[in-house]
């Protein structure tokens, strides 16, 4: 084998890779027919490949997927909401557009406009940007206060929603519906969008 052309072994590998020129292939074939050492070498290489390919294929252990899934980070509530916005860009855009068009919410997007607004109801009193449900009165509708506070001394048969403000409840005060306080821009958008799609 010491007298063998240097390139013969290289040709063997090219042949095994299925990437050999025709002349090289002829040279390899001719040499192997006449040289027992190289013939043996080539046979050993082919046997090696067959052995490695016969290595038994193994499968992932039982329960593998469940273990991987348990490793994944939990999705937080906030992430869920942000993802919702990210995943529904069209709905988000449509909702924002509607909010703009409805006019009432233009104030959402300019910090300077802290325009005080609330549900018009003749029973309500207003003092220094605080809406008061006087003691002894009974409001039979949902109340909505934006950029202001609400003090409930009487009773409200409906929901009370306060955006960018605070709610004070007297001991005698009573609200039959839901009380919502929303003071983050994000939360306000979320609130408006939820009501749009309900």
């Amino acid at each position, binding site marked *: 084998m010491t007298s063998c052309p240097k390139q013969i072994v290289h040709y063997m*590998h090219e042949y095994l890779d299925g990437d050999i020129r025709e002349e090289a292939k002829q040279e390899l074939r001719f040499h192997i027919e006449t040289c027992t050492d190289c013939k043996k070498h080539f046979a050993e290489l082919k*046997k090696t490949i067959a052995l490695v390919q016969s*290595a038994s294929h193994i499968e992932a252990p039982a329960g593998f997927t469940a273990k991987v*899934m348990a*490793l994944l980070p939990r999705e937080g509530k906030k992430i*869920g909401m942000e993802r919702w916005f990210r*995943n529904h860009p069209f709905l988000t855009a449509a909702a924002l557009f509607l909010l703009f068009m409805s006019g009432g919410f233009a104030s959402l997007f300019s910090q300077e406009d802290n325009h005080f607004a609330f549900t018009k109801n003749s029973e309500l009193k207003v003092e220094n940007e605080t809406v008061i449900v006087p003691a002894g009165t009974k409001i039979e509708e949902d109340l909505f206060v934006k950029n202001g506070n609400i003090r409930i001394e009487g009773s409200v048969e409906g929901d009370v929603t306060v955006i960018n403000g605070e709610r004070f409840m007297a001991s005698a005060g009573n609200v039959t519906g839901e009380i919502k306080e929303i003071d983050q821009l994000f939360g306000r958008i979320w609130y408006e969008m939820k009501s749009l799609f309900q």
Partner: protein
Amino acid sequence: MDLIVQRRIKQVIKGDQNAFGEIVELYKDKVYQICFRMLWDRHEAEDAAQETFLKAFLNIHTYNQSKKFSTWLYRIATNLCIDKIRKKKPDYHLDEEIAGTEGLNMYSHLASGGQLPEEEVESLEVQASIHEAILMLPEKYRSVIVLKYIEELPLQEIADILELPLGTVKTRVHRGREALRKHLRHL
């Protein structure tokens, strides 16, 4: 399959973890196999395979969707294994072990894994020798041999996975085959 995978990946990017579960199901055996042939140890292979999927999940945004997903995934797996091999190199010189004990290790190994109960002892021995021969390869040859002959991937794809020039991959396959031949020719 590629189409399903691409669809699932889009869902994963959108935050759907269940879609990722389907991807794990599709690739777990391949990834585990790469890790097992690279690392020898079942537990380490399982850890490495789990880590591969976790990394893939966390970095899914860096995956280029115009490229083959498996190439990207196998790259994570091989890089992880190569890292692990380098970190604990002394343990991997099997030549230093007393002749004969490796085979025994391999037996208890396979037995504890619950694989191949129906296989004959003789073929177990052959399997053990093959596995050892692969493990004796330096890691740069081992990765190409595992990808070429265990995973049966084309050379170009191996070059993509390992981010090496095709010529380098060919050279490593050639050297890897020669090294294996020295260990396996007497079988």
